[in-house]
Structures are given as C-alpha cells and as structure tokens.
C-alpha cells in the first residue's frame, strides 16, 4: 500500500512544469509592483508631479490661461521687495508660534485632567473631541458670528458684566483680528493634542507615581521627572503635526478675515491663494508656496532627529 502511494507521488506527471510565468507569479518584487500600482499612480500623478511643477512654476511668469516663460528668480526678487509678503511671513510665524505653544500647553493640561478617574469619564473624553470632528469651515463660521462686530455674544456678556463700555471690534482691528484667529485655531487644535497625549499618558503606570510619591516627589516633580520624559516621543510627533498644519492653515483665515484688515492676518497660504487664483499670477503664487517648503522641512527634521535621539537614549534597537 505504502509503496504504491509513494510510486504515484514521485511519478513525473504529477509535478507540473514550472514555467517563467509561474515563477513570476510568486516573485515578490513582481507582485508588489501590481499591489503598489494604484497608490503609486495617485501619488505620482497628483502629488509628486504637482510638487515639482509648483517649484518650476515659481521660476516662470505663468498666468491663469497661459503657460509661462522661464524668468529665473524674478518672482522671488519681486517677493523680496514686497512688504505684504514679509508681513505674511511674520503673521505665519506669529500664528504658528503662539497657537502651537498654547495648543501644547492647554492640550497637555487637558490630557492630564482627563487622565483622572471621574464619573462619566468616557463621555467627557468623547465630547472633548467634537471640535476636531466638525469641519473647520463650519466651526469657523460659528466663530465669525461670535466675533461679529455688532452682535458678538462675547462683547454683550462683557458689557453686561461691566468690564467693557463698547463692543470689541474683533475682526476689524489689526491685533484684535490676529488674536481672534489665533484663538479660533487653538480652540480647534486642542482636542487633537489632548486626546493623543492622553493615549500616551494611559501607558504610564500609576505605580511609577506611587514610587515617586513615596520618595517624596512633589506634584511638579512627578510631572517633570516621570510623566514628561515618558511622554517625550509622542509629544515630538504630535507637535510636528500641529506645527505643520498650523503653518499651512488656510480655511480658518479665509472664512474669518480673508487676510484682512489691511493684510494683517494674511498667512502665506492665503496670500498665495489670493495672488495665484484671485489675481491670476500663478508664478508669483507658486513662489510663495515654494517659500513655505524650507520652513516645513525644518519642522520635520527637528522632530525627526528629536525622535531618533530619544529612541537611542532609551536603548531601543533601530528597526
């Protein structure tokens, strides 16, 4: 019986010919090519190509409706002497700096608060995230109404409390407008920072705090020497994202002020839109957009190397 089975198994007919096609079918690189194709097509056609095209456009005098001629650095020279461009750079840095700092501080504070045991914990945590879920434009419209110069509810409440005499012109005054849009941006960004940091906090074992308390650590020391070091890697990533998305913000400004009053709240993104799509000067707009790239690279590199250093310090292997 066994003999018979063996004979059949090794008979040459049962081993199929392995052709080139069969080899190709199990070749990882060949298979992977087909698996990667859809994603690669999208990213090359609509991401990589426009990115390169954008840099190229910034060296041309392209307008809407006609291709441009190569003009070298003319667009950049023009921007270099343009005070509105420098104002937008200043605004962008101010906006990013202040908003990110507050988002980090309030987000971390909120995460620490949410990490406590309390009734309705899950519900409160879920509710906190709502500003992040609702589309920015729609919540920005609510802020537009809250910041209305005549019928602002904030002005009304402060007036009734006797703190101010006349309505605050939130979006009509240079610095008021800047603080107003920064406030709206912080409002929108805090939930993301808080919930992601909370996810990091959850993994910190309470016994570490107990040990620190027994050793006589104050609450501040517990935070500084237990919580903060353990949270650093996730802070690095969250803050990179936060900086990136704040720096390139467009929606909030466009809805609330459109760059006004007198360009006081123009960010580089909104100025680029206004010049390229509104004014039709694609080349100049592209130059503004391209000028954002070095800032973004700097933000990415800082966080990336910050992250790598942490990894090495904690003795984890590179993978």
């Amino acid at each position, binding site marked *: 019986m066994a003999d018979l089975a063996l004979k059949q198994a090794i008979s040459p007919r049962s081993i199929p010919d392995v052709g080139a096609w069969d080899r190709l079918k199990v070749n990882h690189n060949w298979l992977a090519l087909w698996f990667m194709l859809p994603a690669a097509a*999208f*990213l090359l056609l*609509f991401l990589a190509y426009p990115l390169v095209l954008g840099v190229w456009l910034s060296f041309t005098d392209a307008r809407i409706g006609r291709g441009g001629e190569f003009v070298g650095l003319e667009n950049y020279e023009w921007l270099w002497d343009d005070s509105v461009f420098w104002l937008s750079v200043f605004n962008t840095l101010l906006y990013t700096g202040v908003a990110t700092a507050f988002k980090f501080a309030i987000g971390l504070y909120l995460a620490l608060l*949410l990490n406590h045991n309390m009734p309705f914990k*899950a519900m409160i945590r879920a509710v906190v995230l709502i500003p992040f879920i609702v589309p920015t*434009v729609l919540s920005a419209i609510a802020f537009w109404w809250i910041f209305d110069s005549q019928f602002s509810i904030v002005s009304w409440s402060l007036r009734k409390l006797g703190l101010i005499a006349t309505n605050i012109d939130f979006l009509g005054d240079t610095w008021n407008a800047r603080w107003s849009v920064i406030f709206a941006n912080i409002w929108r960004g805090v939930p993301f920072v808080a919930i992601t940091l909370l996810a990091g906090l959850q*993994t910190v074992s309470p016994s570490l705090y107990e040990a620190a308390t027994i050793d006589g650590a104050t609450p501040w020391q517990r935070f500084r020497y237990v919580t903060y070091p353990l949270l650093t890697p996730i802070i690095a*990533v969250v803050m990179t*994202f936060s900086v990136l998305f704040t720096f390139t913000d467009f929606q909030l400004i466009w809805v609330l002020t459109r760059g006004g009053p007198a360009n006081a709240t123009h960010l580089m993104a909104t100025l680029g839109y206004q010049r390229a799509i509104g004014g039709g000067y694609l080349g100049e707009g592209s130059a503004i957009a391209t000028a954002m790239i070095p800032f973004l690279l700097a933000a990415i590199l800082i966080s990336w190397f910050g992250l790598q250093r942490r990894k090495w310090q904690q003795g984890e292997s590179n993978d």
Partner: protein
Amino acid sequence: MTDVLASKVASPKAVLSGVTADHTEGMSYLQTLPRRLVTLYLPLSLIVFVLLFPFYWMALTAIKPDEQLLDLERFNPFWTWTPTLKHIDKLLFGTHYPRWLMNTMLVAIAATILSIVASVLAAYAIVRLRYKGAQWVGVAIFLAYLIPPSILFIPLSTVVFQYGLFDTPFALILTYPTILIPFSTWLLMGYFKTIPFELEECALIDGASRYQILTKIVLPLAVPGLISAFIFCFTLCWNEFIYALTFISSTEHKTVPVAIVNEFVDGDIYRWGSLMAGALVGSLPLVVLYAFFVEHYVSAMTGAVKE
C-alpha cells in the same frame, strides 16, 4: 520603520474608558473632594464649556426667530422660548443646499473608497511582501503625508485643468486620495503588522494565492482598522476646503463648506440664521458618525501618530 511609539500609545478603548497601564486605581483616593473640585472639575468644566460653546451658539442661532437674533436688549440672547424651523426650511427648500450635501457625500464616499482600495494593496505589499526597497517606500509615504494641500493647490489647479477635470466632481474625487492614501496606508500598515504571519504561511501552504490571502485572511482580521481608516478618510474629505474652493467654480458642483462660505454671504443682515443652520446641518452627518464610532476615531488619531 519606527515602532518606537507603538508601545507608547494606549489602545483606543483604554483611551476612552481610562483603564490604566497596570489596572490599579492609582493615587486618586488620596485626594479629598474639595481639592478635586478646585484642581480637576473646575478647570475641566471651563475648558469643556469653551470647547462646546460655539456649537451651542450655532444650534441656538439656527432655531432663533430673526427678530431675536439681532435684538440683544429685549430678549435674553442665551435662550429662546419660540424656536423656529424657518431657517432650516429655507435652507432645504429655498437654496441648493440638498444638492451641495449630495455633492459632498458623493465626493467623500468615492474618494474614500478609491483611497482605501489603493491603501490596502499598498500597505499589504509594504508590510508583507517585503519587496526590494519596501522600507524606503514606507518612508516616502510618510513624507507624502506631511505635504500639505496648501502648497500643492496652485500647480494642481493647472494639472486639473490640463487633464480636463476642472469644475467636475472628478477633480475632487481624484485629488482627495493624495491626502487620504498616505494617512490610511500608514494606519493600515500598523494593523497588518499585528496580524500573525503564521496565519498567512498556513494559507500559503494550503495553496492560497496572495489575493486569496488578502481577501480571506488579512482583511477580515483587519476590519477594525478598515473602519477606522474609512470613517477618518470620510471625515477628512468632508472637511476639505482649499481644493474644493480652487477646482470647482459652478454653483451646482460645490461642496457644503465652499458653498456656505461663498453662496450664503450676501449683504442680508438676517443671513446669520440660515448661515448657522447650514453649518449645523453640514456638521450633523459627521457628528452622528462620530457618535457611533468614537473608538475608531480615537484609534485612527492615535494610529496616525503611533507608527
């Protein structure tokens, strides 16, 4: 590439329900109630109030009669005893709003499905096929995630024009995946890594093809990840503004965020009611989705920073 953070982030369920790392109560029993009131409940309720007030204000404005909207002296602005559906009625039957909702829904669903299919294939190839240079492709996709739409929209508008897609829904359906694919590939790579390789080896020995492994073994196990990716992509699409503003010019093709900003802003002093109603109705689908899938949202958010 960087699994360094994988152990630094709690599971989404734990994030919401608050199970601590070693399942102990911690030291909260040491705090007295008055102390907790001042250090915890007071600041927390203040922050939650500020976070939620704009939505209350939005909803209240949407149902207030016009005369109460602008008269803050005779009527208490924080409440209304005579709610009206006039603004919402005007929105749904007096404007193109239902059309815009349909556009947004269509674009969001189409772009999301395209992106998920492309990301599933790409993520599986990067994690499991381990082809030559897979690591570098992973890094490239992460970098693509960091390229913001606001530096791409100008050249992309000329590209969209060249391809003849300008002012059609396809302009958005085909460009949104560039935002979604990097994110969802990254998220799904994390999920696929958690599926035991042995399961796939068993299937390979049993003679399954790669396609069969993907559809019959990996995808059923990655359903939570797929839901996370799907709803998060959908939310991002609904939220997208700058591409929709740039690539769409005719009223009937606009999406909700663009249409509200451009079509509702006329000189009418009483526009606030319908504006707020538009914002409210435009947010509701996402809030409802969020209410059902809170855990998946949290998992998508933490997943985005985890890998």
